[in-house]
């Protein structure tokens, strides 16, 4: 059964233009380029101002996490997992903990689940604020960048109070979380949320109602409906095409089924719509955080009893857990063999497809001035591509 036929196929890579014809110039966007999110590079072949061919080069941040985690005990992996996606480590912590809990069948107390949701939603909000700044900055609005990054910093202060660390907080551990909420924390969260909502209101006036921003972003990088499944596009990029798919609704984990929110969908699926979907989800996160603070049970234990972590043999098993992070489906595929080390763990980051195959497809034919905008509108984080 020949699996490869000879006629060209839509998934075959496009032919590279020959540079000897003198029509094309090859330009390397990045890794040292302020318009590229994170540390990756695009090998652009441009004809005039138009991109004729694009290759993505990743791996500048490759640390071999999956290898390192195979030679660390389960509890030793916790400082490791949160380093995988730098702007939002909480999802890695939750997924790793969830995978272990599923294999070892650990019951998580309810208070811990609420605290996890609080942590995850704050993380989502912080990550979205960072993205909003980068996205408006890549279109030349440094003012909005300054505002949003500052408000993200206030949320990082909340994290510091809640977990003890700004960026890498090993808060979500297997069986629960590491600490209760400090005294008067809810009031401070609400205060920050007020500031964030005020900021979002201003951002809507400055960015989304801005004629120039519309000129730049509308019709840029349109993702057709067919591409969604063909390229495995997830998250807001997918919801901007009109697909109502959100893991928090479809396969509710933690206590998301007790929260009240609806999936945001749009239809144009260009850069502007993707930004708009994310903007609405930020409002949703704010409301979710408020609901969590209301409905959260007061007392109760926040941590299940674990066996002795020093020689903790997780039983043999195999599972795949996933959560809806800001970019879409973020999954951990874990295989254990009953020893106190992992057999194999695979981290499925949504940027893996967005930044490599989708970017290579969408970048062809756009103006070189829009490459940074398109890159940001796909919302990719290189660290989770190369792990």
């Amino acid at each position, binding site marked *: *059964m020949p*699996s*490869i036929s000879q006629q060209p*196929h839509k*998934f*075959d*890579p496009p032919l590279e233009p020959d540079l000897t014809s003198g029509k094309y110039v090859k330009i390397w966007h990045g890794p040292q380029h302020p318009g590229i999110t994170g540390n990756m590079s695009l090998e652009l072949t441009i004809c005039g101002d138009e991109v004729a061919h694009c290759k993505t080069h*990743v*791996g500048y941040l*490759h640390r*071999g996490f*999956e*290898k*390192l985690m195979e*030679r*660390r*005990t389960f509890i*030793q992996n916790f400082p490791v997992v949160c380093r995988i996606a730098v702007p939002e480590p909480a999802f890695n912590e939750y997924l790793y903990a969830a995978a272990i809990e*599923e294999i070892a069948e650990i019951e998580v107390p309810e208070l811990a689940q609420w605290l996890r949701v609080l942590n995850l939603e704050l993380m989502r909000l912080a990550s979205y604020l960072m993205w909003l700044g980068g996205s408006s900055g890549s279109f030349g609005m440094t003012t909005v960048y300054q505002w949003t990054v500052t408000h993200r910093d206030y949320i990082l202060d909340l994290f510091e109070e809640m977990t003890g660390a700004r960026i890498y907080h090993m808060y979500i551990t297997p069986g629960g979380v590491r600490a209760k909420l400090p005294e008067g924390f809810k009031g401070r969260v609400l205060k920050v949320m007020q500031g964030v909502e005020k900021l979002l209101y201003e951002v809507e006036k400055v960015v989304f109602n801005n004629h120039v921003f519309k000129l730049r972003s509308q019709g840029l990088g349109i993702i057709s409906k067919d*591409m969604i*499944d*063909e*390229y*495995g596009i*997830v998250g807001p990029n997918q919801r901007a095409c009109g*697909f109502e*798919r959100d893991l928090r609704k*479809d*396969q509710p984990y933690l206590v998301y089924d007790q929260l009240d929110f609806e999936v945001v969908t749009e239809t144009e699926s260009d850069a502007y719509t993707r930004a708009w979907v994310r903007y609405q989800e930020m409002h949703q996160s704010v409301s979710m955080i408020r609901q969590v603070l209301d409905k959260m049970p007061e007392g109760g234990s926040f941590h299940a009893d674990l066996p*002795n*972590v*020093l020689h903790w043999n997780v039983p043999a*098993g*195999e*599972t*795949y857990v*996933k959560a809806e992070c800001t970019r879409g*489906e973020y*999954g951990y*595929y874990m*295989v254990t063999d009953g020893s106190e080390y992992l*057999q*194999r763990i*695979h981290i*499925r980051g949504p940027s*893996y*497809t967005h930044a*490599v*195959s*989708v970017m290579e*497809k969408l970048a062809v034919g756009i103006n070189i001035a829009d490459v940074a905008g398109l890159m940001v509108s796909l919302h990719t984080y290189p660290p989770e591509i*190369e792990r």
Partner: protein
Amino acid sequence: MKSLINRLTEQFKVSLEKQTKSDLCFIRVNKDDAEQLIRHCRDHESYTHLSFLTAIDRIEDNKFTLTYLLHNYQSHQSLGVHVELDRENPVMHSLHRLWGQMATYQRELKEIYGIEFPGSPRLNDEFFLEGWDQIPPMRKEFSTVEFCEERFPIREGRQSTDAKQTMKVEIYPGRGE
């Protein structure tokens, strides 16, 4: 899930490995039927979303296990397809015509496991590593510690103890046993 497995077992030589939860189960198929099975699942069972493709290095029984994880957006169920490869010369049919991102996964596996996917586009381009001159790093027999010791100089004065012993002796004294 059960009905799906039954439907599949009628047409293909598949064996249910394990169903870990209600919406996730893993089946095993031999490598020549894999493409037909996956294509069938994508086209007729509406498992249209490829979550990931990865490999597991089972050095004890000298095999690589490829895992294709497909997802069904209608029933919200996931199906993991296991394909076992011989560890000596691991070769798998290239499925890059099925999904657009498949070629990228195959590139990665070629680099970090040395699994061959003949016909996959840009298969031999460097993906993560640059100028890698050892055996593929994710294989079990590749010891990253020894490699680091002979490749990268460590600043003197750093002592790295066995974390397990440290936890036993210093952090949780007495809880070790």
